[in-house]
């Protein structure tokens, strides 16, 4: 069971209030697809993604980035039981989407990088970084939980 102290909850709420679900979600997904090209295998139905320009202009990437970031936001609204909240999504990723769970960590890393770039070094301090790394690790772990 994951415990969050008051300081961590406050950091997450204040950062998330400024997140642009569409723009930041898009950036996180496009960086994942570009920096870790094997992840494109999960999105062959998105069409052209062979160059960075293709990825950037692909409307399905934008839509999916938004969907993923919105799901992160939902998980934040259920912070006291992220594992339970993501149980169905975990089954989906295992049973239907067949996603290697190592990829959840890669996307999580890119969410942290996008937030670091957005907020800058003065606001995205080591303490804020640690809290967000905990959040994405908890989400990755929850998404992996129903794998079999």
């Amino acid at each position, binding site marked *: 069971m994951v415990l969050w102290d008051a300081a961590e909850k406050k950091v997450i709420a204040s950062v998330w209030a400024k997140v642009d679900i569409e723009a930041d979600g898009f*950036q996180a997904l*496009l*960086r994942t697809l570009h920096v870790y090209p094997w992840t494109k295998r999960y999105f062959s139905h998105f069409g052209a993604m062979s160059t960075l320009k293709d990825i950037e202009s692909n409307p399905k990437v934008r839509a999916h980035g938004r969907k993923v970031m919105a799901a992160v936001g939902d998980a934040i609204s259920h912070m006291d039981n992220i594992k339970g909240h993501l149980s169905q999504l975990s089954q989906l990723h295992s049973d239907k989407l067949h996603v290697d769970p190592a990829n959840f960590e890669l996307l999580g890393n890119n969410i942290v990088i*996008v937030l*670091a770039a957005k907020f800058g*070094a003065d606001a995205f301090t080591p303490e804020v970084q640690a809290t967000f790394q905990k959040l994405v690790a908890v989400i990755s772990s929850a998404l992996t939980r129903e794998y079999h």
Partner: protein
Amino acid sequence: MVNLEAAEKQTITSFWASVDPAAQGENALQRLLYCYPWSRRYFAKFGDLSTISAIRKNSHVRAHGHKVLSAVGDCIGHLGDIKGHLAQLSKLHCETLHVDPANFCLLGKNITICMASHFGVTFTPEVQATFEKLVTTVAAALSSEYH
């Protein structure tokens, strides 16, 4: 051996011209020591690293961060043979410093986050991809003489 295309070499070289190894080296090391507390075990001689305030005030952290990030920057001048260039440093980390090589990847990750936080939109996906290739290669080269 890492293969960086001409465009990637150009990207990383011109990006690095804006990097401040002292300030950003310190910031990256602070992030590592705070977010991955076990990494402090390697720096007992630095004194107090028990809180983020202590880490921020610690002059050894600044000096060492500078040293490490400068060494990463030096590798840009040896892109054709980072492994050879870092062979001695790899032996040092194995035989004298006894550093678990997993920590090289963690530091690489924190250097990347530090760069993103300092450079914002300038830390584009192309820069990120090339940069991550560099830090991954440095981590692998530092592990290469381990036995």
